[in-house]
């Protein structure tokens, strides 16, 4: 096991993400931040005060449960827990930043895009991830990346967040 990000580095990575999002946001566009359950949700919530600090407060916040949209439901099987989606705003014309913890095959993001489509039509969707570990199976790339890391296919990137796991750390497991 090796540590990819400690607590301070994780905070710094999130601050960088917030700054990058702020710099890319088109003038006057209504910003919406939507996290993918569960750790993407926590990261998205953490981005809110950081975005405010750099002068681009998010006007909307939402949570996406992609369980029902996954194409690998049969392989993740009955472990899937449906917690529901919370998008209490009109997606139309928003500049929507989708947030997830780890970008791997891209299948979660594909499912999230399908789910978002059922709710409305944002003006644009961008993807922010804490860790990009490679090994994409779909033509999906992040717009904002906290950390890019080379991995082998079998390694596991474990993102732990205080709100969910009691500690802030990103680890690489063999």
């Amino acid at each position, binding site marked *: 096991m090796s540590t990819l990000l400690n607590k301070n580095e994780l905070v710094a990575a999130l601050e960088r993400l917030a700054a990058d999002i702020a710099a890319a946001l088109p003038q006057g566009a209504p910003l919406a931040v939507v996290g993918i359950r569960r750790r993407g949700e926590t990261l998205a919530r953490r981005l809110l005060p950081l975005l405010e600090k750099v002068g681009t407060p998010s006007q909307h916040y939402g949570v996406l449960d992609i369980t029902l*949209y996954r194409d690998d439901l049969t392989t993740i*099987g*009955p*472990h899937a827990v*449906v917690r529901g989606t919370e998008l209490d705003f009109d997606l139309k014309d928003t500049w929507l930043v989708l947030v997830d913890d780890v970008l791997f095959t891209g299948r979660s993001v594909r499912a999230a895009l399908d789910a978002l489509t*059922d*709710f409305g039509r944002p003006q644009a969707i961008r993807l922010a991830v804490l860790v990009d570990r490679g090994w994409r199976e779909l033509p999906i790339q992040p717009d904002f990346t906290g950390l890019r890391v080379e991995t082998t296919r079998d390694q596991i990137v474990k993102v732990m967040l205080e709100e969910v796991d009691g500690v802030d750390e990103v680890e690489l497991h063999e």
Partner: protein
Amino acid sequence: MSESENGTLVWKRKHLLTLEELSREEIVHILDTAHGFEEVSTRSVKKVPALRGHVVVTMFFEDSTRTRMSFTLAAQRLSADILDFSEKMSSTKKGESLRDTARNIEAMGVDIMIIRHGAAGSARSLTESVNCCVVNAGDGQHEHPTQGLLDLYTIRQRKGKVEGLKVAIVGDIAHSRVARSNLHALLKCGAEVTFVGPPALVPGVFRELGAKVTHDFDAVLPEMDVINMLRIQRERMTSNAFPSTREYVRLFGMNAERFKRCKPDVLIMHPGPVNRGVELSADIADGPNSSILSQVTNGLAIRMAVLFLCQQAASA
């Protein structure tokens, strides 16, 4: 039953046949899953692709409006394809057995069968003839598990908990599968259940299942947190077991006068369809303490959850 790495229950049943055989954890898992599905019905596009490419067939050998529609809509919201088997137009009228009918339907590539049948145990015996998932939508006077679940869900939603609540189930308990499913679910979740009705319809033998039994509604009225008024099922009634309708209403009907003696926040439930003026007077059925319409709405989320979980277990 086992637990996943994040501590939540792993659902392993591909059939839902009774609530009697489920653990408290399994029941709570269905309710929690249903909560996740509630939001789907509030979307502008009220559909998710969870059962896309799967085939669901409803096989109702007894009349039903809301249960069949609720299951059909639940399956549609999960993007399944729906077949409707109607006995009146089918070969069972030509003498085909349930077993042969079911096996023939399954051969078309069906993933989930939803069955309502007049014989107790029919859903379970179906699982011996077919390989697909079987969901019991009511088997004789035995069980109606999704009704029990949606009632429990409604109680939890309106009261915030189930544990410790006093629940009266009033009416024709002897013939009621709803009463049995409710009893099992409520007892497992820590509620106290009292069956109320005339002696012929509420035999004392129900005490053996863990219920309290009384024939005096007025005596228990003031202490109840939830009162579930069952429908008087004329179609199941043998003539002399039942007092006259007027007598029944006088002793067991819920009306404004009785309501005044209830707790102010009492929850009044009814599985429908209501015989207005018999089990419930109209002002009570439509009043703020009534959950009749939320029961119908919640039934949809419960049935989506059940179809989803059973299919998940089957494909695991």
